């Protein structure tokens, strides 16, 4: 079976800035690839060099060493027109242009394909319509760009990039200003675009949960200043993700793929039960700084508390209960329970 040839490939790439005295290396020794049809998320802490990498890949700034090959050709050797026909970007800049319709904005993406006066021919209109349909933004065509919501505008911006007919699409935090449903929708859209149109898509994001669940590949900036890539699950299992994001404040749970605040409180809550109520009771206790378990193993624990859900038959006033040092309390809501817990903690101090 023939391997798909990578459309974007980095070999021993070193990026950073040339300063007056020497140079400041941001990331080095990066050798990763992206294939046609792959949707990749670039992850890394703030200031790790995500934007610098995107800027280098789109040739806004030169690489310090190593090579980038874009659809078989060295990035450095491409003319600006060739580059624009192979690679399109969606930047973090908020584009607000009065009197410009979404259709016209997408039409601007035809820049590298049109003639000297930028006249749009029938084929250009065809590509614009295709791009808007692919991003489900066709119904926005007549609207002014300034009237669009953040989510709508982001879809139109992606359509504009698609109208450029690139092989590779780079997006810099496209989900940053979106609400949760729009974020999920947009990410799903990108994944589908990659798969169905054979695009290679790389987006930076801080949304680790979403990246873990949707990306084909993760590009992970490690703290030794290089780049690791792999399937999300691989990076969970080999501990690279945990290593990259865990700190004294936050721990990564390999089992769930979630980050939780790291609190060495020495307080343990024992909850036995598997109902939906028990699940959210545990979440509430974790949020309140408890280490939740099913057994009463009290080794190294300063304080232990039993919690549970009141069954119908008990007929008590509260739905939730907590037993501390033999004293039982009932609560009408989880808010009451957590409030009581934090009051307990303050009196203990």
């Amino acid at each position, binding site marked *: 079976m023939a391997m798909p040839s990578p459309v974007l490939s980095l070999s021993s790439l070193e990026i950073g800035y040339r300063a007056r005295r020497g140079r400041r290396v941001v990331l080095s020794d990066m050798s990763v690839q992206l294939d046609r049809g792959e949707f990749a998320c670039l992850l890394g802490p703030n200031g790790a060099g995500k934007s610098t990498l995107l800027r280098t890949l789109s040739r806004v700034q030169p690489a310090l060493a190593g090579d980038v090959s874009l659809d078989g050709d060295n990035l450095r050797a491409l003319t600006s027109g060739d580059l624009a026909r192979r690679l399109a970007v969606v930047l973090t*800049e908020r584009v607000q242009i009065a009197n410009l319709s979404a259709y*016209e904005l997408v039409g601007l993406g035809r820049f590298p394909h049109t003639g*000297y006066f930028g006249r749009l021919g029938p084929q250009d209109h065809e590509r614009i319509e295709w791009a808007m349909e692919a991003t489900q933004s066709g119904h926005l*065509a*007549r609207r002014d760009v300034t009237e669009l919501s953040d989510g709508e505008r982001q879809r139109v911006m992606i359509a504009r990039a698609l109208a450029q007919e690139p092989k590779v699409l780079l997006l810099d935090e496209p989900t940053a200003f979106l609400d949760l449903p729009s974020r999920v929708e947009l990410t799903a859209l990108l994944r589908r675009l990659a798969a169905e149109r054979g695009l290679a898509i790389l987006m930076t994001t801080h949304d680790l949960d979403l990246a873990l669940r949707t990306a084909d590949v993760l590009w992970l900036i490690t703290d030794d200043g290089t780049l690791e890539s792999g399937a999300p699950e691989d990076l969970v299992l080999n501990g690279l993700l945990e290593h990259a994001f865990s700190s004294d404040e936050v721990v990564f749970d390999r089992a769930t793929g979630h980050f939780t605040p790291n609190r060495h409180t020495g307080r343990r809550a024992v909850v036995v039960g598997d109902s939906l109520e028990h699940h959210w009771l545990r979440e509430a206790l974790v949020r309140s700084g408890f280490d939740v378990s099913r057994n009463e193993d009290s080794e190294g624990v300063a304080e232990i508390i039993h919690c549970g859900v009141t069954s119908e038959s008990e007929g008590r006033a509260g739905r939730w209960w907590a037993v501390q040092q033999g004293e039982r309390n009932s609560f009408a809501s989880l808010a009451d329970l957590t409030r009581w817990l934090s009051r307990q903690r303050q009196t203990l101090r």
Partner: protein
Amino acid sequence: MTSSAGTASHRQQPGIEGGRSRGRTRTLVAFSLLILLFLLAVLVSLSWSSVRLPLDEVARVLLGLQAERDAWTTIILDVRLPRVITATLVGIALGLAGLQMQAVFRNPLASPYTLGVVSGASLGAALIIIVLPGLTVGLYRDTATASAIAQAVSGVGLVVGASLGAGAVLLAMLVVASIVRDMVIVLLLGVVLSALIGALVTVLVFFADPDQTRLFVEWGFGSFHRVRWDDATLFVFAVGIGGAVAALSMKQLNALLMGENYARSMGLNVRRARTLTLTSASILAGAVVAFAGPIAFLGIAIPHITRGIFGSADHRILVPGSALTGASVALGCGLLAEMPHSNLTLPVNAATAIVGGPIAFWVLLRMRRGWGL
């Protein structure tokens, strides 16, 4: 006029097909009306002034036929036509230059004079009006000869002085603009340079005698009367160059709508486009200031008025649109400045604000969110 029509057709044609044709009718109607308005403005400007000439006589003279009186032919061809051509060129030049500057700086307050062209020209004019006579008196020690020279100089000399001043400043600023990456810094440097040169001019005016001061102040009012047939060719040439650059860079200006980063990502050579556009805008502005004085307000207002008329951000519409709108508005200002049926004439700069101000006010109030770039 068209916003309600726009929403109505929005309902009829949802979807992508509607996006393709949005505003097409409005564009056609607006262009037709503007061309009519321009032709009307030309005819009325030729006919109305201190003396009113019948329109049909104006038409006869323009067509090369014999007018009822020979004097009319002279008035129309030698006095009014140059004035009409000056106003038209000023309007076209300032409309285009304003549009280019606002596109390159992505700033609604940018104008053709943002880079300090006016201050340079006024320094040149001040040198010609104030310093040169002093020098000639010193050289000839004969007031009669000196004043004769000063007389000659204040015509052609003013044009030369103002163009040299404008040219020096714009060259300096173009060098700055090609070195400094951040356009906001370039804009601020233009403001600072203008203030510096303005201080020099103030010093010159402070030491000038009252007649010279008066001449200089009059230069500052702007006028469409200064261009004779002989100078007109050069003015036409300068505006032609600027207009050609604007026409050839419509696509680039559109790409710049989204900002320099996006423009670069689509393959635009941003630095080259920027330098070319600034050069063109400076030539246009410099020519206006040299031939008609520092005509105020039109450069900043015309592009906004044009955006309001066409409801578009597309420079393929705005470039010809601004030229047409600019020509008509400048002719209107010239007409007002002549104060038809009276022996008075107003300074053109008062007229530009009186005519342009309310239009710009109305357009800006009607503008939706965002400002059109």
